[in-house]
């Protein structure tokens, strides 16, 4: 069956690409600009990606099959440049429309025994997830009703101020917590296009309490160029065991919005890549 073929392919890749190694070059200053000259100092690694076929819903017909990665660090921050080919740029998360996205995954414990399928109970992973829709919100203003459906007419939103925040003393307290409360508002108004989530097994991803990751994505000539940057150690929260002079593991996932990719419908690297931080 197709599922077994994919798993076999993934395991084959696992055995082949276990040798893959990403070195994070020590530089004086990291950057959020994907086209900065500092990236020339870093060695690129091309990581093959295959469709997610471990759990339903699966990605049985992937449209992206590789990602090129570079990394630099300045002792305090580590940044990754991620480049992949995508024929269309999808910058909106709408009814039946999903944004292009990329994520990197670092195990808390620097061991390849941590399951690459987003960790497991007691074996936590950190995931830094960039989406083109968050990038769009920050670059061109929040994608609100007037942007998405410019000709739509609506007469009255009782108490709702854009984007989708309701006053705390709104009379319908049940609707407040249910449809437009603080957590939903906060999820949608991050000041960065990258969100930090932790997971202990697929399906368990949870937003991290402190959101310190930064990023920038640029679409140019049929390719996405995305930088994701995070401090090695963020204050007042948990961090993976990584830093200058240490080695850990890393893996990647990509979503192609126009192919209906979201959540479990993605391509990923089934094997950990060694990450050596200079």
């Amino acid at each position, binding site marked *: 069956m*197709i599922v077994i073929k994919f798993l076999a392919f993934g395991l084959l890749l696992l055995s082949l690409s276990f040798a893959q190694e990403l070195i994070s070059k020590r530089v004086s200053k990291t950057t959020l600009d994907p086209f900065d000259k500092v990236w020339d100092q870093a060695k690129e690694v091309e990581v093959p990606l295959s469709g997610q076929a471990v759990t339903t*819903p699966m990605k049985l017909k992937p449209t992206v099959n590789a990602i090129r990665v570079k990394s630099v660090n300045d002792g305090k921050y580590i940044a990754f440049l991620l480049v992949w080919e995508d024929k269309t740029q999808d910058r909106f998360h*709408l*009814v*039946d429309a999903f944004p292009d996205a990329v994520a990197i995954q670092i195990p808390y414990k620097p061991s390849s025994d941590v399951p690459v399928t987003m960790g497991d109970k007691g074996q936590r992973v950190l995931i830094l997830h960039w989406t083109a829709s968050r990038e769009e919100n920050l670059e061109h203003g929040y994608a609100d009703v007037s942007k998405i459906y410019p000709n739509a007419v609506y007469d009255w939103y009782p108490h*709702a101020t854009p984007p*989708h925040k309701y006053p705390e003393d709104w009379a319908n307290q049940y609707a407040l917590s*249910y449809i437009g409360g603080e*957590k*939903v508002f906060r999820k949608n108004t991050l000041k960065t296009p990258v969100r930090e989530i932790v997971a202990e097994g697929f399906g368990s991803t949870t937003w991290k309490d402190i959101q310190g990751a930064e990023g920038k994505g640029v679409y140019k000539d049929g390719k996405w160029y995305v930088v994701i940057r995070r401090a090695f150690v963020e204050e007042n929260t948990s961090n993976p065991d990584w830093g200058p002079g240490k080695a850990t593991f890393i893996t990647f996932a990509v979503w192609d919005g126009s192919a209906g990719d979201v959540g479990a419908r993605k391509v990923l690297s089934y094997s950990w890549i060694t990450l050596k931080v200079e």
Partner: protein
Amino acid sequence: MKAYNWQLKREINYPYEVKRPKRQFAVVMDLNKCIACQTCTVACKTTWTPGRGQEYMLWNNVETKPYGFYPLGWDVRLLELLEGNKKTVFDAPEGERVLGWKPEDMDWMYPNIGEDEVNEPVDIGTVLESLPHPIWMFYLPRICNHCTYPACVAACPRQAIYKREEDGIVLIDPERCEGYQECVKACPYKKTMFNFVARISQKCIGCFPRVEEGLQPQCVITCIGKIRLMGFISPPEEAMPDNPIDFLVHIKKVALPLYPQSGLEPNVYYIPPINVPIKFLKQMFGDGAEHAVKTYMAMREGKEPELQALLHLFGSTPRIPYSFAVGPKEVIAYDEKGKEIVRVPLVEPLQSRPHKDERLEVVRQDIP
């Protein structure tokens, strides 16, 4: 996993182990009385979906059958997927958890399509003299069915949707939802909807804050035609004859589920419209349609006094009736503790007033 579906009288595949809730939220709607005034739609919308990103959402909608749909073609596409009832939606293709289809945004933008349209063109001078009518249409009001085996719960890869144990109401956790819309694809009735401003999916919440207080939902109490009654349904082997929902669904079998072939065991039950041909009703409500129509017509001839009395309870009280009793002249509803909540006379009391009010020296205009 195997799970028993009493509406289909067989086991279905379900990805989770399901324990039936302590009580199951259920609504009965009498389609012989719906006039598509849309008061229910407005009530729900004003209460729960007046926000940004929810403009197109109708958690309660009323569509005309045969040619109305919200979203477009939802039931026609469901029947196509089920391949003549060979499958339920849980017989999913490879790589998928639930068999479903994904509506585009424009599919939601025509909630009034086909409204009031009859099944075929009518010649001038046509008179409908027999039941069922050869030219027919009816209105179908719909809410989330709070199914026993929800497809939305099964489809969500993050388990952001759950079914409450205390009343069987199905809810999406807005903090956990990330807007993957797997539930939108999976729900055969298309009652989960994506909020494109908040970037999460939302659905009918069964007015759970009201239900927790012992009150019936907004769409039920505002119904002008008094076609709706909300209560709690028991599984068939535990049916209680004095529970209004059990009486209508399990005992008189006059209220039927919507497209039971989906396999989800939906918990909104319909008394089928007697003017519609049985073949269409069987497709929509299952094999019990003929018996339900016969029973309702017998009731109209006075042969079902208890059923006729119970229908008087519809729209008579905002409180949830847990049990009812029929007296010689009244029907009485009781709450959970057995305390009386409403008493409705079976025959509307006749009032007679003289044509001239002598005290005010005016003539009454509002009497024949």
